[in-house]
């Protein structure tokens, strides 16, 4: 199963259910677009996003699909295809980011790369103690390309952004909370209940007051998002990405290849 959603009493729940760990490729992108097209923002006051995948919230971009796209297309078709995907995923992330309602992400396990970027569109993050956040893109010869850097920079200090990006290391929920990224840390399995409580609180507020406050406090960093997209598209054309992806895809080690 991929994505599914239900709305009840003004609270929409978006369930990420794509095994093994909600890899974001063309299928997930299309489902996210359909979800946003169907979301009734007039009647919805809060959105809870959570994953039922065993591995965690999301492992990020579908690296196998990305690699196959690079090796199967003629050279002159690669850049347009990648640009189209990036433009579409940016529109989805921007729309999620600016929804006029309170959005709550529930994080368990892996929250890496594009999955981390998806989480960063949420207004409030609830992390279970198993959660782990990471931007491993530099280990692949690229940088985050779904808008993650400007969103992370909006929420935490530049030093934290540099630490995560320039080392590619992952951090746990406690560290993420200390950095200001996560608002609540809860026991494994308790994230959804905590997020639903946040969502119920949001439904008590005046819709205009809530949307105005969010718009005021969470502006979209448009220039930086465009700049990040340009950097990503340039770096993704280089041989370094293809070579790193090849090693990752071809590895049968229990520990997937990453430098």
């Amino acid at each position: 199963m991929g994505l599914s959603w239900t709305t009840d009493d003004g609270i929409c729940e978006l369930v990420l259910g794509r095994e093994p760990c909600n890899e974001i490729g063309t299928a997930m992108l299309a489902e996210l677009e359909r979800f946003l097209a169907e979301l009734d923002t007039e009647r919805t006051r809060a959105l809870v996003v959570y994953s039922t995948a065993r591995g965690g919230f999301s492992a990020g971009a579908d690296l196998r699909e990305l690699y196959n796209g690079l090796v199967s297309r003629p050279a002159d078709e690669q850049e347009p295809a990648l640009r189209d995907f990036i433009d579409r995923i940016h529109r989805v992330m921007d729309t999620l980011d600016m929804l006029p309602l309170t959005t709550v992400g529930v994080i368990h396990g892996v929250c890496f790369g594009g999955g981390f970027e998806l989480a960063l569109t949420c207004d409030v993050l609830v992390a279970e103690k198993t959660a782990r956040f990471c931007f491993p893109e530099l280990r692949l010869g690229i940088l985050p390309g779904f808008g993650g850097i400007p969103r992370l920079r909006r929420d935490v200090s530049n030093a934290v952004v540099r630490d995560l990006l320039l080392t590619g290391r992952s951090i746990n929920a406690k560290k993420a909370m200390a950095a200001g990224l996560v608002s609540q840390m809860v026991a494994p399995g308790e994230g959804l209940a905590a997020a639903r409580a946040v969502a119920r609180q949001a439904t008590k507020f005046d819709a205009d007051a809530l949307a105005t406050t969010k718009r005021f406090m969470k502006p979209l960093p448009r220039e930086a998002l465009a700049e990040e997209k340009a950097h990503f598209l340039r770096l993704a054309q280089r041989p370094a990405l293809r070579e790193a992806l090849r090693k990752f895809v071809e590895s049968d080690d229990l520990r997937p290849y990453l430098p």
Partner: protein
Amino acid sequence: MSGSLDRLIQLAAKRYGVEAAGLRSEDDVFEKLGIDSFQAVELMSELELEFDVEIPDYELQGVRTFGQLAATIDKRR
């Protein structure tokens, strides 16, 4: 057996339902616990919280056994 190694083995055994008595310092963590990379990520978070340490991923490169993992944790305590 060092204190960290013993605690590490007890925690891992409980978490993944294996007999602690069957785990030794020189055993491969992934193979002995039968875990994949996603479970390894969860285990790292649990170990960091249990031992109140931070273990950057790059310090785990080449770490394969319980003994090596316990030594890495000890360097950070």
